[in-house]
């Protein structure tokens, strides 16, 4: 693995933080641009925008399905491995939904159907926004209490923020919509992200010894932690994507992206700030 060969002691703090900060800035711009043009930082999925999602196992091709549902606001037909299909429709009025529902029942009686109304989606949106906000504030408070020192705690919080913002931007770029599942994954990311950041900060600030050794030791442990988590999540992603379990597949995709982003933010951004902090306070 290329990243494992990264020498955490080779670069100056300034060099370390540059890439993550530039990416954070770009990510911020992506989300800002989307907010300006659509009113939301991310493309909302059916949970938040309203609409209908259908999971079905069928040998019908994508074209056949598109033709079958041509009269309805069809958004996309996703294909899994094997015969699994995930069909999404935009919001529609009640009469149209009833007719769609009847059609699905007739064509694909074994389908899983979920429908969310537009206004209810809006309500969910507001609630999800509150959840993310409270989570982030709560996390910041815990970190601040744990370290009782503004700069190291600030670095952890900044790294977590960068994780979420960059991951969200990647989601927007590759087209993973914001849904209840992906919101939960972003929240979970706060937890995962802080894990390795706290390990790093504790090792560097509370252990005796040379800074280089402590950074290298923390990095070794941190990498193995993130790889084990990555492997568990990757297993979850493979099975859920193959088995057409949309919600788990979404959660796993976001966690996978997030964990890679977190590697960068922990071992470049957070470690860089921490190194600069220790070097500077050592000189005094």
């Amino acid at each position, binding site marked *: 693995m290329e990243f494992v060969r990264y020498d955490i002691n080779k670069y100056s703090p300034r060099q370390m933080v540059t890439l993550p900060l530039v990416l954070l800035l770009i990510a911020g711009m992506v989300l800002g641009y989307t907010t300006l043009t659509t009113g939301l930082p991310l493309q909302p999925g059916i949970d938040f925008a309203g609409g209908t999602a259908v*999971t079905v196992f069928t040998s019908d091709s994508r074209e056949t399905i598109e033709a079958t549902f041509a009269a309805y606001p069809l958004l996309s037909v996703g294909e899994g491995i094997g015969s699994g299909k995930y069909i999404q429709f935009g919001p529609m009025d009640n009469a149209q939904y009833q007719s769609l529902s009847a059609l699905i029942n007739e064509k694909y009686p074994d389908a899983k159907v979920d429908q969310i109304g537009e206004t*209810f989606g809006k*309500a969910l949106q507001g609630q999800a926004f509150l959840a993310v906000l409270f*989570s982030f504030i709560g996390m910041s408070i815990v970190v601040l209490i744990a370290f009782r020192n503004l700069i190291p705690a600030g670095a952890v919080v900044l790294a977590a923020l960068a994780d979420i913002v960059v991951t969200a931007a990647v989601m927007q770029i590759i087209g993973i919509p914001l849904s209840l*599942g992906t919101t939960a994954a972003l929240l979970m990311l706060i937890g995962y992200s802080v894990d390795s950041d706290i390990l790093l900060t504790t090792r560097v600030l509370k252990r005796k010894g040379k800074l280089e050794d402590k950074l290298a030791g923390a990095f070794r442990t941190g990498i193995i932690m993130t790889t084990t988590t990555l492997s568990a999540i990757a297993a979850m992603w493979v099975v859920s994507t193959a088995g057409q379990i949309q919600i788990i597949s979404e959660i796993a995709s976001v966690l996978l992206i997030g964990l890679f982003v977190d590697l960068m933010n922990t071992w470049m951004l957070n470690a860089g700030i921490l190194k600069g902090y220790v070097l500077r306070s050592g000189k005094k």
Partner: protein
Amino acid sequence: MNREAIINLIKDWRIALLLVLVIGALIGIYLAPPNPEKGLEGNLQFGLDLEGGSWLQMEFQSVVVSYSTDRSVEDLIENLHRGLEAEVIQIDADHIEIRKGVSRADIEPIFAASGAKIVTYHKGVSPYTADDVKRILSKKVNALGMQDAKINLLTPTGSEYPQYVRIELAGVDMATAQEIVGKQGMFEIRIQTTGNETEHVLFGDQITSVGLPQKDPQYQTWGVGFTFSDTGARAFREAAIEHGAVDNPAAHHLVMLLDNETVYSAPLSGELVAQMRSGPVRSLSATTGTGDAGLEDAMALEIHLRAGALPVKVEIVGSGSVPAALGEHFKTMVALAGLLALLTVGVVIYYRYREPSIVIPMLAINLAEIIILLGVARFIQQLDLASIAGLIAVIGTGIDQLVIITDEVLHEGRVPSSNLYMKRYGRAFGIIAVAAATVIIAMLPLALMDLSTLRGFAIITILGTMIGILVTRPAYGKVIMAILSK
């Protein structure tokens, strides 16, 4: 490790606690009560998406408004009632419930005209009305012999008034679910003629409104008020006079039936008879009795009078269904995902440490954690797809934290003394305690929010983290110490 060392290990409270909880969890899942026909699943509760069934989420078309006024409240309620053509009910001293999906702008002019001001405006219903809806729905579902129905009231964060009701019916398709929820009973009022004979008076469609149970301040009896339409009131008067109920109330009971079953039977009161002699009466009250029993009967009667119709209109805002076969497929898939996750984690860990005496305890502890988590979940949380994602995420963080402990303890080679060991273990524990606290805090909002279907995900993650920090990490610390010092 020799036999003595193992016995000593088991005597340690951390290990003992772990073992007791694993055994307890297994008993909870498989033996209490035994459920052999379910095989490996035992008593685990699965969500709709794994079990198959349908769900409907409905929004109450109603608002709760708190107000201030110098004039009489009755006027305000009457004006709202007439202006909006909606039922308006006073909930407490300064709150009213308007049973119609009206916007704040819709009602502001009526408040202004009645010399009142709106203080707060919330969509939703009072907790009482919400419980009423819940009772009516459970009655309908139970009447059809459906055991696995879940009816939950959902209150958005930041409001105290339930705004939605979600009903989940296992093993039922969408069309049947909608029929069950929408179905109304047939309500009929009859009057006793001679002996046990009764004569039809009117059907439930002549009842225009039904009130809440109320206590009569004079007689301390509970009762439910209801009103007839004009036609209903006339029909009622004519029948009462024709069959002699006005002259001899005691021998001519008023009988109410729901789906041909008697739900209420009582004579007309002297007061009512006096009123009816002079003309049709629209507002009536059916008395049930005193004390708690009277209240309970009154609540039941209220539901009967509505004939299974909900007191508030509801609109379906979300719905879904999963065929049982697909649920079964998902179940297999998630079990596979969990096993595969555990296996890959094992391989990665082995690749790092290359020492079976470390890798095996790590995986065993992780497995124990999952068993305990499932054992707890069996009592408090049904497992749906989202909560299983949480379970797999817990495998990930769990191993993470065991790695932190191992690396911290192994720092600079094998452990020389148990003193130093405890110091290092303490430091590792400090790291994972902070990490656990942040995960719990980050997931808490999601776990507390009524609206999201991701409560399960958050609850399982929080539970798993707590079990980890309280039970399995301390036990792992002890095990790894025993192994390293052998």
